[in-house]
């Protein structure tokens, strides 16, 4: 693959000409980028305080090796399983005449809206024997394969149909065409998606706690609970290193992306492969996948909700929990989207080496599991800002750190749809910059901002780990209340909370899927 270059993005004016404008914007974006590095900085300071001797004593014990082995084997297995299932499902939905493929496209993504710990709860409450490595592989694969499905489906949809046709024309058979053209085309999406899966596995806490599987993250939480701060810091450091390593792989995979369409026009409808006699087995496969990933958790939730509370604990206010969940998540959505906007604007409109670096630096928070961010903020608040400790503000900030990369991706895509040339035209037509912003830029960017908001909202609603650590005293969100019932094995009492959680999360997921589907189709000018 030497010597091919990705075609330049179409642009209305050379971006270099923009240097003069938007210096204030650059400053704001740089500030955001610096703030985003703070959790990592706090972690390093903390580790520095603990000192090397104490760190090495913790790192070179037998338990650390066991955790490393547990974490890495699970990570590799789940990533491979997700890559296989996600890619296959995407190919069947996008490229074959699978009956009901529009419905399947939605159903297959829905497990994304169900928190991993709810899926784990569903399985464990049905079959208590499911635990350990196998249980963890099963649950995490069912929870995370949509992370591969979505990018691969998008890549298949955006692919140039001519390439497969040319391959067939050059005498390649169906299978050879699939391997050498189709798979090659979306290998970046597959690999990138799998590494995102790996990051999710690394930062998962709730599901593994339920499944009694020990990884770095669960151990960090345990150490935190017993106030062993040195051990928590030492393990966090290792975990972050592994995450950074995975993130590096993901960045390199994306850097290798080379696409080239033969025309700029919208994709022609691709001729779909006929499944023929394979239709029934494939359909059964989809039924099984959706049944396991969606049916089991939803089924158990319905079962336990209908059967009623088996708990002897006093019923907590579900309305209050729902309100807190929605309120914190909405704040997080707004804050994160607002933070992502300046970074997206300079990344798209002032494309230079320095701004690209700035943008990339914000992705480093992606390597920080929620628990590590939460602990870093606890450390920060306890040392320098006691007034923030256990306030909603700190929790919302944690969400913003945690979900910034998600928001940035969505905001960037939408900013790219409002090229600065359109603003130039608007101004040449005698309209002021402010008016042009409201009549041109905002209408074009708004859908993407809404998508970013939804994405963060959805993620914050279903977030458990950081919420457990940072929630204000005496406040329960749906996730934490569900958690306290589940850890008491009060499955019946827990069920309504999870059901509401899924219901609140499902709406933004639906909006997102719709947005995602529209993305490559609308070409405009």
């Amino acid at each position, binding site marked *: 693959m030497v010597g091919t270059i990705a075609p330049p993005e*179409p642009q*209305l*004016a*050379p971006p*270099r*000409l923009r*240097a*003069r404008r938007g210096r204030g914007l650059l400053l704001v974006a740089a500030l955001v980028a610096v703030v985003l590095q703070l959790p990592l900085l706090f972690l390093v300071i903390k580790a520095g305080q603990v000192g090397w001797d104490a760190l090495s004593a913790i790192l070179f014990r037998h338990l650390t090796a066991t955790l490393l082995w547990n974490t890495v084997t699970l990570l590799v297995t789940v990533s491979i399983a997700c890559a296989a299932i996600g890619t296959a499902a995407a190919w069947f939905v996008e490229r074959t005449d699978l009956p009901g493929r529009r419905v399947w496209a939605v159903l297959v993504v829905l497990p994304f809206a169900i928190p991993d710990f709810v899926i784990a709860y569903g399985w464990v409450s049905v079959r208590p024997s499911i635990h350990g490595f196998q249980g963890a592989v099963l649950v995490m694969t069912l929870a995370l394969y949509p992370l591969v499905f979505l990018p691969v489906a998008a890549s298949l949809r955006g692919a140039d149909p001519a390439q497969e046709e040319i391959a067939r024309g050059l005498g390649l058979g169906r299978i050879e065409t699939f391997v050498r053209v189709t798979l090659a085309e979306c290998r970046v999406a597959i690999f990138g998606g799998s590494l995102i899966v790996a990051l999710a596995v690394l930062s998962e806490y709730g599901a593994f706690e339920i499944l009694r599987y020990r990884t770095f993250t669960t151990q960090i939480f345990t150490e935190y609970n017993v106030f062993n701060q040195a051990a928590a810091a030492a393990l966090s450091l290792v975990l972050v290193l592994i995450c950074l390593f995975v993130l590096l792989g993901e960045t390199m995979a994306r850097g290798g992306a080379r696409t080239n369409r033969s025309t700029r026009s919208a994709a022609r409808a691709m001729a779909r492969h006929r499944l023929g006699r394979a239709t029934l087995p494939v359909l059964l496969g989809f039924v099984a996948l959706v049944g396991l990933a969606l049916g089991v958790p939803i089924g158990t939730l319905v079962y336990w909700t209908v059967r009623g509370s088996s708990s002897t604990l006093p019923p907590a206010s579900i309305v209050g929990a729902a309100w807190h969940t929605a309120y914190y998540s909405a704040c997080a959505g707004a804050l994160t989207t607002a933070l992502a906007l300046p970074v997206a604007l300079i990344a798209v409109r002032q494309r230079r080496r320095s701004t690209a670096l700035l943008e990339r630096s914000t992705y480093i928070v992606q390597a920080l599991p929620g628990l590590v961010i939460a602990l870093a903020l606890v450390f920060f608040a306890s040392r320098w800002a006691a007034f923030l400790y256990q306030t909603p503000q700190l929790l919302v900030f944690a969400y913003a750190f945690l979900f910034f990369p998600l928001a940035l991706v969505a905001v960037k895509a939408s900013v790219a*749809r409002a*090229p600065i*040339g*359109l603003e*130039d*035209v*608007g*101004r*040449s*037509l*005698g*309209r*002021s*910059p402010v008016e042009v912003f409201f*009549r*041109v830029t905002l*209408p*074009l960017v708004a859908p993407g901002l809404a998508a970013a908001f939804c994405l963060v909202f959805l993620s914050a609603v279903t977030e458990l780990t950081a919420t457990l650590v940072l929630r204000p005293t005496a406040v329960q969100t749906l996730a934490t209340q569900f958690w306290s019932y589940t850890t008491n094995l009060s499955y019946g009492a827990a069920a309504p909370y999870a059901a509401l959680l899924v219901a609140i999360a499902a709406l933004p997921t639906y909006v997102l899927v719709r947005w995602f589907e529209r993305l490559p189709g*609308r*070409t*405009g*000018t």
Partner: protein
Amino acid sequence: MTTLSISGVCKSFGTLSVLHDVNLEVADGALTAILGPSGSGKTTLLRIIAGFERVDRGVVRIGDVTVDDGNTYVPPERRRIGYVPQEGALFPHLSVIANVGFGLPRRERRGAAVQHLIAMVGLSGLEDRYPHELSGGQQQRVALARALTVDPELVLLDEPFASLDASLRATVRADVAAILQETGTTAVLVTHDQDEAFTMADHLAIIRAGEITPAAAPQDFYAHPIDPAMAAFVGEANLLSGTIEGAFANTLLGRFPIRGVAPDAPIAATPIGATVLVRPEQIDVCAGHGAGGLAGRVVRSDYHGHDALVTIAPMDDADGNERIVARVAGTQGFERDAPVTLRARGSVLAWPRPTE
């Protein structure tokens, strides 16, 4: 009267100097084309006129208002300049009528003036379409109508036809020229397409590496290019090596009078080595090796329908590298390797070659 006057404009981005000392006068009601290869600074110049970029030095005046001299700066929205960018840049979220009416006060946005402009660019009935439902040519017309709504003093066209199919380009080009003429609008067109500049422009200026020539009629550039590179840039050119003897140039095609040189010009003692411009249409091609003229053989023939360009290698060319291009009628077919005789007529241009 001049609508636009640019003097001594310099612009650089960082260490990269894009425009040096650019001067340009644009006459009222005329279409002036700025022709230049990509990277020559022509789009930057246009963006400076529109007010999207500021000058480092120099003065830009529109009418009798100084809009930019490094200190005073009139922002684009107060310059009354219609801007038609590459690929139209229609607002994708607005319909045709909303695009055209964008620059008007709210109550006029669907008014008679907008309808009239849409009719003028031939898009009546498509008012409620969205940009992605229009062809490239239609998008370009909407962009022009939109630029005309604000009754601009000046319309700037930035390679507006580059994204159109060749077949469409000629008609859209003619339509746009007709509309501009009809409305008496002063326009500046930036393009890298010599054919486009020649067919559309009343006046032409050529920009190369940030330096611009004075504007003149297109025919002047064709007949009197200032150097061999420009001669080749504005059209097919045979740049032959030869010598200057007073008012005449000697080439392997024969001896020709030099345009613009007095017939009694003194003859240098030793012949001056020169590059001599002979346009392809000055050369007649006859089949077979006849008496007089230059014998050669056809190495290539590019057929264009109405005419054809025939490339000929002279028979007695010592190093075998010289090629002469002649324009012949399309009906006159020449086979490869056919023997031919070349006879040239008219006058030529000659530039003394720098002595080593």
